[in-house]
């Protein structure tokens, strides 16, 4: 245990001083603020929706005044999810890939393995450091969203009521779980391929194409049976978890998630555990030849 903590100290130093980690977090926060709050605030405040013609919103769409309520503190948890669940996942995956892939790229894995800790102790310290990094990422994201929503409410003199503490805590934990899943997915890919480039490429392909596109296309043809299969896949479960917090009221008639939050949490946790086990087996069994 002491050796794991010693490794953790070293790993935290490495991640803390790595510009790429801070760039990923900064990009995520900037995108949330720009697309989740500021642009929408400008649109809802300074423009008027078309009432007829092809640009007119579908019947039943809430007015801008109603939509603007979603930018205030009461909805900041949902708004954060809506804005950056997927993008944040991809950035967390990149952090996971870099944390491990660079060790192979720079050959530092041999430096690490010729020090004192056992391989699995080193891996444990490293995984904890990655989990703490995405925890920080989730925390910063929610804090920035909360601060921005409060600022906008103050500017408009609107209601500054916060959501229930339980909602905030659940939202934070859900964000952390989703980002941890992605980070460990990237970590396992980097361990498998012993490099960053292939891991990021395949990770992005999965995030953007494989699950979303395949199931998106298939569900159009087959419908429910496909969704029954899809409920066991990670991206779908990340989606269920996000949807379990409710939509912030932008569109009516949203279908209920196919599976509930408990199902999503269990599935994402199982996937995360599977990636950790995969990385552990590979690290423990493989020769270090790089």
């Amino acid at each position, binding site marked *: 245990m*002491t*050796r794991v903590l*010693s*490794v953790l*100290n*070293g790993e935290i*130093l*490495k991640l803390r*001083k*790595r*510009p790429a980690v801070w760039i990923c977090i900064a990009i995520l926060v900037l995108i949330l603020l720009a697309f989740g709050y500021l642009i929408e605030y400008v649109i809802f405040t300074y423009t008027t929706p078309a009432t007829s013609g092809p640009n007119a919103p579908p019947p039943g769409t809430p007015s801008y005044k109603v939509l603007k309520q979603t930018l205030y503190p009461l909805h900041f948890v949902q708004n954060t999810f809506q804005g950056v669940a997927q993008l944040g996942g991809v950035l967390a995956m990149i952090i996971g890939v870099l944390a491990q892939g*660079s060790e192979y790229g*720079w*050959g*530092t894995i*041999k*430096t*690490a*393995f*010729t*020090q*004192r*800790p*056992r391989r699995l102790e*080193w891996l444990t310290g490293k995984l904890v450091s990655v989990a703490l990094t995405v925890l920080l990422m989730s925390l910063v994201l929610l804090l920035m969203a909360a601060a921005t929503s409060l600022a906008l409410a103050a500017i408009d003199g609107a209601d500054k009521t916060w959501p229930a503490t339980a909602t905030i805590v659940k939202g934070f934990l859900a964000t952390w779980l989703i980002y941890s899943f992605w980070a460990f997915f990237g970590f396992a890919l980097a361990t498998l391929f012993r490099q960053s480039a292939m891991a990021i490429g395949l990770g992005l392909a999965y995030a953007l194409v494989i699950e979303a596109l395949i199931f998106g296309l298939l569900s159009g043809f087959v419908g429910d049976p496909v969704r029954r299969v899809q409920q066991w896949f990670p991206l779908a479960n990340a989606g269920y978890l996000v949807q379990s917090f409710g939509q912030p009221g932008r569109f009516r008639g949203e279908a209920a998630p196919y599976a509930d939050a408990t199902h999503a949490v269990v599935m994402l946790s199982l996937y995360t555990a599977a990636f950790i086990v995969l990385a552990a087996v590979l690290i423990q069994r493989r*020769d*270090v*030849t790089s």
Partner: protein
Amino acid sequence: MRSGELVIETHGLTKRYGGEILAVDALDLNVYRGEVYGFLGPNGAGKTTTLRMLLGLIRPTAGNATVAGTRPGAPAGLIKIGAIVETPAFYPYLSGWDNLKVIADYCRVPDGRIGAALDQVELTPRAGHKFATYSMGMKQRLGVAAALLKEPELLILDEPTNGLDPQGMIDMRKLIVELGKGSRTVLVSSHLLGEVEQMCTRIGVIQKGRLVAEGTMEELRGAITLSVRAQPSAQAQEFLTRLLGAAAVTGEDGAFTLRVDPARAAEINRALVTGGIEVSELSSGRRSLEDVFIELTGTEAGL
């Protein structure tokens, strides 16, 4: 035959890749406490693979090893070993000091050791600069500083002068000799004969994965011999064979090596001249390590 405490001991150590490539073949290596052991061999002979097995980075296909009293890769052994395998590998975005701090954390070595290790390799003035900005020589020195952090009883250095300019090579050799003083054991691999000759007290020669010779410099170079140039050649050979015995005389075309006590030089010279044989040169000496290396490996690589 040497005696003393073995710091590295391998028995039948073998590494085979994919069933076909035999990188290391039944290696029996013995490194004793306090010596600077040169692990000499041409490129691709299996030196780095052997060192990786000794450090637990790769698992042997067969055989076993004991390093610093434990099996390779065990924490109890690793804490006593400082190592550089191939090129020193560090984090380019971290400073030299931060890189050593990461390693100090891994090893649970107090931060105070970092400054001492940097001082020892004369890298303190650049300690705050990023590793990516270091020259090859500075990278090698940081590698040595990292290896010294644990104040190890065994140093394993794989081709430590690789990529260094002549002055850097001289400095590194001096440093290694310095580090090898006292009870610390140093295992240094190299394909450079001159380097090994200058630094090492004992040598193992590896060729195609097999240890083809092991011993002190004197043992490998053999006993002091006499070299004679004399004409006419056939008459000289016959005369010397009769005088010293066939086993003591080798050579041809008027150049002979005599395995006899060098103190007999004057006696042999007098006998040859008295016998009507013209002696143009008579000197004593040992075979060079270069001769031994070529004889053992059949290569002139890295001379």
